[in-house]
């Protein structure tokens, strides 16, 4: 086997050196009843030629966003990834390194993670960000758990229904065994969280108030109201963001009183890859940093006084604190945090803003196009949006999707995909647009709608 260097002769030499007469000897403490001597029930080894053929055929049977005009978003947005990113990610020094436990031989990874943390802090307006979380939903759960540790003995969390249904589902899944009440607050006719209902739901037992912006209907929320509602009862405000480009044109949670920001940073050049691996993030105010979950890279000096980076505050973590740790997370999303960092570095201040403005302009163009239609379509909500909006489909969501597919267009995500068993919003299609789609693509979608 090409991945095992030692030849049969060399293996025999090693066996002799350890004093074993066969490989079976080395497994002597495995109960015989369960020890297999026959080959595993798998087909024979596949060569690279066969792997390319077999997996190539699988890949070819999927709709690649490279070949289709796509308006799919709903928490995962397909933005441009600069060509150098995927090539530099292939450098073995990045790809095949472990978590940088040994800083003297890991300054590359550590510096990049420190930069990732800085990007996230700048974008969200926060003081500290961690080295990454798995993805947006688990980052959100961790933010709530963090708020619980910070506020102590409180038992309730108030959550907007504008938060992505899968994020809310995860919250319920992870928190099922905690003595917690999750109160959901609906959105109003503008698609934004009902501010009065939100404030009313918060009480002295409330750990945190969580809102997403742009929310799952694409509507931009006001952070001030969230912070005010939370702080009125000494709860923490949690801001969820999963379209990070919005933060180049919209005030960030950290500038508007929010205490913990979390969500998904995959917009920065991370390939959608059928939904993973992505890049969760979590950022907070300085005062809360000792309760941040996951890895954190900090600055220090070496024996010669040269500045350098290393993992720090690890007494928060499971390998030191075990069941008292701030989280059980160990492996995170290193490589894709690096991808996001590379992309952000290349975009820079100017590219970030320009990309955001293009997304905004294209979404506005589409919305104007929808409004101009005579047909059975309307914008579901009146609130401001960034690059995604909910389209109410008279003819039914499926009919629209099918008609669009005939034109190699993925028209959007049915809200029902996000919340398959829930009863609400069956007629909503979430339509997202990024800088990858040229005007011809936008006009193509409008033409499909016009055909109804």
């Amino acid at each position, binding site marked *: 086997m090409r991945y095992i260097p030692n030849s049969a002769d060399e293996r025999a030499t090693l066996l002799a050196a350890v004093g074993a007469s066969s490989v079976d000897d080395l497994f002597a403490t495995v109960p015989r009843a369960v020890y297999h001597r026959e080959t595993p029930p798998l087909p024979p080894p596949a060569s690279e030629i066969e792997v390319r053929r077999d997996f190539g055929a699988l890949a070819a049977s999927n709709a690649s966003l490279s070949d289709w005009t796509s308006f799919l978003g709903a928490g995962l947005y397909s933005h441009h990834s600069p060509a150098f990113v995927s090539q*530099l990610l292939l450098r073995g020094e*990045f790809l095949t390194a472990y978590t940088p436990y040994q800083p003297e031989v890991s300054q590359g990874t550590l510096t990049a993670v420190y930069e990732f943390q800085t990007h996230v802090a700048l974008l969200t307006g926060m003081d500290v960000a961690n080295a990454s979380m798995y993805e947006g939903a688990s980052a959100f759960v961790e933010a709530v758990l963090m708020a619980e540790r910070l506020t102590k003995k409180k038992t309730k969390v108030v959550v907007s229904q504008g938060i992505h249904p899968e994020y809310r589902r995860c919250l319920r899944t992870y928190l099922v065994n905690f003595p917690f009440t999750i109160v959901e607050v609906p959105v109003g006719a503008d698609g934004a969280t009902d501010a009065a209902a939100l404030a009313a739901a918060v009480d002295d037992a409330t750990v945190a108030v969580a809102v997403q912006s742009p929310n799952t209907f694409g509507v931009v929320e006001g952070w001030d109201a969230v912070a005010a509602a939370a702080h009125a009862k000494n709860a923490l405000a949690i801001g969820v963001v999963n379209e990070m480009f919005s933060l180049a044109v919209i005030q960030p949670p950290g500038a508007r009183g929010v205490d913990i920001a979390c969500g998904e940073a995959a917009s920065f050049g991370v390939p959608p890859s059928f939904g993973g691996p992505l890049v969760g993030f979590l950022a907070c105010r300085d005062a809360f940093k000792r309760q941040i979950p996951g890895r954190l890279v900090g600055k220090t000096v070496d024996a010669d006084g040269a500045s350098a980076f290393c993992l720090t505050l690890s007494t928060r973590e499971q390998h030191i604190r075990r069941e008292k740790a701030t989280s059980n997370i160990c492996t995170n999303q290193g490589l894709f945090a690096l991808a996001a960092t590379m992309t952000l570095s290349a975009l820079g201040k100017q590219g970030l803003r320009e990309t955001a403005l293009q997304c905004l302009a294209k979404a506005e163009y589409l919305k104007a196009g929808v409004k101009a239609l005579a047909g059975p379509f309307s914008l579901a909500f009146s609130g401001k949006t960034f690059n995604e909006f909910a389209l109410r489909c008279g003819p039914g969501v499926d009919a629209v999707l099918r008609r669009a597919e005939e034109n190699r267009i993925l028209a959007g995500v049915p809200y029902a995909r996000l919340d398959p068993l829930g009863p609400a919003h069956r007629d909503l299609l979430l339509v997202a647009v990024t800088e990858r789609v040229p005007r011809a693509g936008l006009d193509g979608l409008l033409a499909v709608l016009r055909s109804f």
Partner: protein
Amino acid sequence: MSDHGTLVSDSIVRADARLDRRRRFGSLFDATRAGRTGVHLPALDVPAADAGRIFGAQHRAEVAGEIEASEVDVVRHFTRLSQMNFAIDTALYSLGSCTMKHNPRINEEIARLAGFNDTHPYAPEHLAQGNLELMWRLEQALKALTGFARVTLQPSAGANGELTGALMIRAAHVKAGNPRKNILVPDSAHGTNPATAHFAGYDVVELTSNAHGTLDLAELASKLNEDVAALMITVPNTLGVFEERILDIAKMVHDKGAYLYLDGANFNAFVGKVRPADMGVDVMHMNLHKTFSTPHGGGGPGAGPVGVAPALVPFLPVPTVEIDGGVFRLEVDRPDTIGKMRTFYGNFGVLVRALTYIVSYGNRIHEVAENAVLNANYIRRKLEPFYHLKYDAPSYHEVVFDDKKQAAFGLHNIDVAKRLMDYGFHPPTMSFPLIVPGALMIEPTESEPKEELDAFIDAMIAIAKECETSPEIVHGAPHTTPVRRLDEAGAAREASRPGSFAPVLRAPIR
């Protein structure tokens, strides 16, 4: 090969470090230059939007402090950064428990096919049949290797798989009428095990290992009762020792109505040789980024699929992938499901790599385990005269020495580890198992050739001798790395200082 221990004290003339470009890599934030940009978009082809007008008071005018750099600057920065990393692509990476094995490049190629990489999870199922089939095939392969009834691919990493398993266990107990209170965890366990038990709502009851480093069955018996939801063990455990009495253990656990959870991070030691379900295991997570060779990427991503016995199948997270009449689909309607562990379906890109790897080995995958165990035993045999071995039970995929002998000369595991860097190797794991103070946990994996093992062994022996003859050199190590030994305590102090992480903003957010 054998004249190790010879020291070379070289006086070399370096260029002024401040002038040597190779030694001046800081954060790119310190090298940002106003007016530069590294990406260029198509000209806007629709009317421009006035963000100020649209968002009013909520408008943000710029992301102050963000980097400004050209493509050249960025490519160079990250190339230079990478050159400061140690990686499996260059040499043996002895970091125990982390299973740093060769990461085949075909896996990267396949995972990057646009038909996988550039697909959206909410694309209609009929336009994602290849992806669904791939997940289905991976589940079948993992079932074949583990003997479990089903495997969920959703968990994002090992720890997330542990939590998934613990939540399923709890859901099953709840359904049976009593969630129970405790999870038993041996003192040799990886830190994620107790942390996971806690986050699943259980109290952790620690089991003290016996003199062989394995479970003390009497102690287990004494702590097993109807309050125990599960026993969470690692096989081979973090000492590299196989739980010889695993069948008895399983029976004891089951007799009390508890579940047996297996931390499968060490599946590399027995994949293709033993099916965990056959041992009575009810739940096990697998680290695809260990046993199945998906690259660690400097910290992640991983994937932590969880296999379960029939009793736990109803509780699997949604969606599952099902096949009906040759068509693959996502099943969301599973009444007893624990729910969702994350958005979408899992770290799909990692799953692609893992299946590529499994298919490449096929029915020879047991050679992974055989060679991993052989290589570890070879290292053990050669280093035993030089390093103390607290537990002498047979080793599987890793061996845990400690620094008892070196402590006599005032040196500790960290000194040996740092000195190893000067010899061009990555140090062993030191942070656990907690039951071995001064641990040096070495896992070579199956993908190391004999000559690399020998070179590593020679280096370890040379260092053992240096500890006796030139302790100050070992203590001052590393000497040849991009930076010298770091002040990690200083890092923690700095991190604790108020405002220490706050990015330098040249202007308020506007």
